[in-house]
């Protein structure tokens, strides 16, 4: 329901933002036209609010209010600060591709270390020829805004049959306070290829910035892809990420998301199983404290028969934090023999914490096995008592139980060293708590 009303202050600010940013945005005349179209679409819709069903629990008008101006290209000082952040968050042995305030930073990246089977370009370069990457089927306002303002991103293509042993790590670093960064990346995985992609979101001492990221992934038949996303933005930042994943036949796709930062965050994933015989595993852990708002929204679309999807999500909610999980499994009329399961659990550690779950099933085929489960509750008193009776202090006993609680989702990460890395993040979060 969008009644045309007089523009609010924030919407006016956005208009100005586009006008002032337009000159700095990369792209051919085609691209500029596509951007303008996307921006008009955003202007019509405005920031999503609770009356839009998909955003019912994450009212950006209330939570974010205004969209901040586009960040300037990072200067030398910013690059230096970013370098330290990159160093601190780099995964051992990974090939790094770094975006600082929404702009690709060649000097911080290991482009040269990329194997020949992985071809790399920046979004900026791609947009000089083609506006295709700015187009998605979505009508979502934040995705339209991303298309209008995307400054840069990583465009990766993994050749058919390539077996990449080292992970490729895309690191987003925010250095500029009170600005926003729009990035859009694409990963195309060739047939039979194997690759691990890690995405990391971090900040230097930047405050109150906004990230709007979009990732478009397409996976060829028989490929094996592991995708880990670690979002640890600054405590007062906003991170809205949209992912579009299309999966071919006989693919193994394993995705894991960890949320430990940002005041307001939303990861919205739209995953389509477009080829038969594929196995999809989508998992995540949200660790929320203070007044953080963490939203995971996923749509898994079984468009073809004989695919398996598994989703395991855990949210730990402390203080006055608010966790949102919306998961939808769609089984199309022809997608017989679909096996889809989704389990989401929320652990409330404080009386003022809030957990909203909306696990949906939308099924049009009769010979399928689908299910979902959702729970919300506090730590089990009897388990706590058991541990305390054995001499563990309260906080430590809690930490142990929380670790076990999130463990089930973290265990789904196949790569040992990545899993250890994620466990380390969870442990640090728990230490900070006590």
């Amino acid at each position, binding site marked *: 329901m969008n009644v045309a009303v007089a523009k609010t202050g924030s919407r006016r600010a956005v208009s100005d933002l586009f006008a002032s940013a337009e000159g700095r945005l990369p792209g051919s005349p085609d691209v500029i036209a596509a951007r303008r179209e996307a921006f008009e679409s955003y202007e019509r819709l405005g920031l999503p609010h609770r009356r839009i069903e998909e955003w019912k629990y994450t009212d950006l008008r209330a939570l974010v209010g205004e969209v901040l101006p586009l960040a300037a290209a990072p200067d030398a000082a910013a690059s230096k600060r970013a370098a330290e952040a990159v160093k601190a968050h780099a995964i051992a042995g990974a090939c790094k591709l770094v975006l600082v305030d929404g702009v690709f930073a060649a000097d911080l990246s290991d482009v040269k270390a990329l194997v020949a089977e992985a071809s790399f370009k920046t979004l900026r370069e791609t947009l000089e020829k083609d506006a295709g990457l700015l187009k998605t089927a979505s009508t979502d306002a934040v995705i339209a805004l991303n298309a209008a303002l995307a400054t840069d991103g990583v465009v990766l293509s993994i050749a058919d049959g390539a077996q990449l042993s080292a992970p490729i790590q895309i690191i987003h670093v925010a250095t500029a306070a009170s600005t926003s960064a729009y990035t859009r990346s694409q990963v195309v995985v060739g047939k039979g290829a194997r690759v691990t992609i890690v995405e990391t979101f971090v900040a230097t001492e930047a405050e109150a910035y906004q990230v709007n990221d979009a990732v478009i992934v397409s996976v060829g038949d028989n490929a094996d892809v592991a995708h880990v996303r670690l979002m640890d933005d600054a405590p007062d930042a906003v991170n809205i990420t949209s992912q579009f994943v299309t999966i071919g036949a006989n693919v193994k796709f394993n995705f894991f998301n960890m949320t430990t930062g940002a005041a307001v965050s939303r990861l919205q994933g739209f995953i389509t199983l477009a080829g038969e015989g594929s196995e999809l595993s989508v998992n995540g852990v949200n660790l929320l404290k203070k007044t953080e708002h963490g939203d995971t929204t996923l749509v898994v679309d079984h468009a073809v028969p004989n695919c398996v999807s598994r989703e395991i999500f855990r949210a730990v909610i402390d203080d006055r934090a608010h966790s949102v999980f919306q998961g939808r499994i769609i089984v199309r009329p022809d997608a017989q023999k679909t096996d889809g399961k989704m389990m989401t659990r929320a652990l409330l550690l404080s009386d003022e914490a*809030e957990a909203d*779950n*909306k696990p949906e*099933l939308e099924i049009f085929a009769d*010979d399928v096995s689908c*299910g979902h489960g*959702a*729970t*919300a509750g506090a730590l089990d008193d009897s388990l706590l008592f058991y541990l305390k009776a054995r001499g563990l202090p309260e906080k430590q006993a809690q930490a142990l139980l929380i670790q076990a609680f999130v463990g089930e989702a973290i265990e789904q990460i196949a790569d040992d060293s990545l899993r250890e890395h994620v466990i380390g993040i969870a442990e640090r979060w728990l230490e900070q708590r006590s």
Partner: protein
Amino acid sequence: MPAVQETVERVKRIDVDQYRYGFETLIESDKAPKGLSEETVKFISEKKNEPAWMLQWRLEAYRRWLTMTEPTWARVDYPKIDFQDLYYYAAPKPKKTVSSLDEIDPEILKTYEKLGIPLREVAMLEGVEPKVGEEDPARRKIAVDAVFDSVSVATTFKAELKKAGVIFMPISEAIREHPELVQKYLGSVVPTSDNFYATLNSAVFSDGSFVYVPPGVRCPMELSTYFRINERNTGQFERTLIIADKGSYVSYLEGCTAPQRDENQLHAAVVELVALDDAEIKYSTVQNWYPGNSEGKGGIYNFVTKRGDCRGANSKISWTQVETGSAITWKYPSCILRGDNSRGEFYSIAISNGFQQVDSGTKMIHLGKNTSSRIISKGIAAGKSQNTYRGLVTAHRKATGARNFTACDSLLIGDKCGAHTVPYIEAKNSSATFEHEATTSKISEDVLFYCIQRGLSQEEAVGLVVNGFVKDVLQQLPMEFAVEAQKLISISLEGSVG
């Protein structure tokens, strides 16, 4: 796993072209002029001999309604309703003032006879000796309020109920005879501004049932209302208000049917339940409105607002519904668990066939301390129908110790239909414990284990556990309803999807 043959056949037996209640009663009726305006509202109020406050209440609702828009969030699809192309009031033309059942138009009596609804309490009171083996002599008595289009044509057992202190009468009578009760409770659960259809109902409701059970009274018999739509192009807007005073108990059930017609008809009812301290209300529905023909033509639009308010401590409200009819169902019987230790229950079986669209479920709103709720929903979709469960469970900040268990399963028969689950689970309190599951195997692992250990297959065990549970509820439904409902329910759970 696909549905087993037996299930497929059972569902076919209740397919849309098998509708048994599609006949029409030819009877002259008294109608309000077509369309909706303040005049229509005044006309209805006048017909009902209502006091001024009631007319005022209606007019306020009507004015409010003018500012509202139709809700579009449900997963149902239908052409826009022209609210000016409907009759809002239709009553069988009385031949003279009716004082006993014998004076009711015989055509109407015949209609209820055909539907199998006992309006002749005399026969039952005197206990006409049933032939051996023909009928259970210990059958319980049921008081019936029969609503025909816009008016209540008969209410049975009024005298006997009065002896127990129970008030059971058409709401139009209650407005005149018990204005203090009606004024106190009407609109207190579903306010006139609640939603588009509830507001419309508040403006133009014509009849329905009113029940008041005084403190400490256990209502001596089942109460029931039977709704029949007969007239063409007529909307039925009934209003039911049930109040269970402290420590009382009442069981109420409703049934509904309509003639087979090519046009769609609107049924927009409001049901309000109020349970005070330690009271219990059990509300059962067997909804069998005409679902339209096998091409999806005709059928009732069933847009109903039902809500129970557990206002007192330790109160309990339970909704049981068996939904097989209506072209479109849009209905969410809910419980507001306001009183401490109050309890809400929702048991539903929704079966859709042909081109039927069902968007139904419940809301459990936990406000009081240590409140608990349970939701069991089974949806079965066949033909080209769409069957959606939509539910909300929410615990507010102060609802410490709130508990909910939800299990909703759906079964699809054929690949042209759809089954959907849209639960909203909101916990704003760490001591709230919510469990939601949509897989049969998880209903109770230990019970299943017990059965399997004793030689039942997984399938049989699940069937036993769930059917046993569902039957338990259904056996509470008395009279013909139970037979009909049981037939619908004995459907195997095999091949169920979450």
